[in-house]
């Protein structure tokens, strides 16, 4: 069992995308979630999927400015996974027996609503990214996601100088923006 300060360190690590913290959270909680899913007509593969999604929910939450977890990490993950799994069962129309309330659960509906919205945004961005084509996609990913400096990008992509790469990046960004908002506004 982790103390409160240990959990805080883990969550800080999670927000910073630190591999060791993520692995530790897996090690501490995975077995519990797996038995929840297996006991409620799920498979081990379902368990892996649900746990991954719950980790993303937690990650999104941990990056909020006013982030605070008012319960144990274990309880939070359990509640999120339970909710996610019930929803999936409903979608698949696989009503087995209802999930048993063995553990204390906390309300997570708001968090999941936010997660769904974020998921939608993520998909729209991913879609827009896949439509702008190369080298735009790689260029924007190098700058905005891998956060490489412009000079390095210029050498890697074969531009003669950083300014030329920058101009190309602007053009790509404008295209991406157009694609993104076209879908984003439709989705609202």
């Amino acid at each position, binding site marked *: 069992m982790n103390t409160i300060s240990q959990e805080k360190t883990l969550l800080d690590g999670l927000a910073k*995308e630190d591999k060791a913290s*993520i692995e530790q959270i897996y*090690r501490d909680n995975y*077995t519990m979630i797996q038995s929840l899913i297996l006991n409620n007509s799920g498979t081990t593969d379902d368990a892996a999927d649900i746990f991954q999604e719950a980790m993303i929910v937690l990650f999104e939450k941990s990056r909020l400015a006013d982030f605070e977890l008012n319960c144990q990490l274990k309880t939070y993950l359990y509640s999120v996974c339970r909710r996610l799994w019930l929803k999936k069962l409903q979608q698949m129309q696989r009503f087995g027996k209802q999930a048993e309330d063995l553990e204390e659960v906390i309300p997570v509906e708001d968090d999941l609503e936010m997660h769904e919205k974020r998921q939608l945004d*993520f998909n729209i*961005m991913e879609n827009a990214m896949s439509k702008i084509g190369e080298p735009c*996609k*790689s260029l924007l990913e190098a700058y905005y996601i891998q956060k490489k400096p412009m000079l390095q990008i210029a050498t890697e992509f074969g531009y003669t100088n950083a300014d030329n790469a920058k101009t190309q990046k602007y053009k790509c960004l404008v295209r991406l923006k157009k694609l993104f908002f076209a879908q984003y506004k439709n989705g609202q």
Partner: protein
Amino acid sequence: MEDTLLIDAAERFARGEMTTEEKIFFEELRKKNPELDQLVVEQLFFLNELGRYGSTKNFKHILHETEAKLVSEGLITKSPLQGKSKIVYLWKRYKRTIAVAASIAGIVSIISASLISVFHNEKTKDINLLVGKIDRAENKIRQIENKTKKLEAATELPLIVVAAPIDAKFRATGFLIDASNNLIVTNAHVVREARNNLVIENNKGQQFIAEAIYVNASTDLAILKVRDNTFKKLTPVPYSIRKTNAELGEQVFMLGFPKQEIVYGEGYISAKNGYQMDTIYCQLSTSANEGNSGSPVITKNGELVGIITSKETNAAGVVFAIKSSNIYKVIEEVKKIKGFEDTKITSQGSLKGSDRVTQIKKVEDYVFMVKGN
């Protein structure tokens, strides 16, 4: 204000890179011009979305890695768990039956094993190993090619000496697995063809002397070491070697040398096991020809999942590849050889997300022709 200037300004504003004066000027401009203000807000929102997309993408990537690691450790299982007590109970109850069944199974397997060894030769007739035999004409062409190259080299830079090409009798494929130690993977049956010389040849036609440092007949894998000083070290390999098995239906591509130049092929995983349920192999649906032995089989995310070895003689498009997990086993053995303790294979590839043409460009420098006589 132009669009690009606006993007630049908004980005620097968001990152807090503006000087105080600049910031005041920018804020002033926004106040005066509502249209501009709207654009800035939109731009900031968009950058925020893009940033969030990036970090979520990174995070998902780490999650996948962590999961793969824990699967290999056994913490995460991919098949249903069984209650232990139930197994113990069943064991106690059926101990006698199991004992009888096991001894019968033992006898049957001994008989069938001996039968299989008797009829073993028939099996090899049904599958073709994909080592290409080279005829004399092709060797002649190579010699002429090299002579012209020598002449070209002589006119420009008289100091470059092109190594005399060997009179090769067979051709297959191999690929680099450890760029710092110049180690190449190919099939054991390819190495067996080499009685005298073994060389590798890159896409530019340069040949380098190689030596087989480890050959494993049961997994049909061999590790070659490039022994030539003229061989230029390459950057770390762009593909990662997958530890888990390929899934049914996964799209894959391969690069090999069924002819004198590199050839690209596509296909998908059509069965999890090889010829007659051999678990070392998986089955692909694609076309492969003599010379493809040792070709890397790579997924769209740049993970190496197999090594092409053979194809079924009587069925079109049925090709067998050794599962990539066997490479790890072979490398463990190589590490035990003196002087090769630091052998390393990368689990991080750099192909994910690139389009196919870019991927091929990155990979082709790491795929070699393996020749010998």
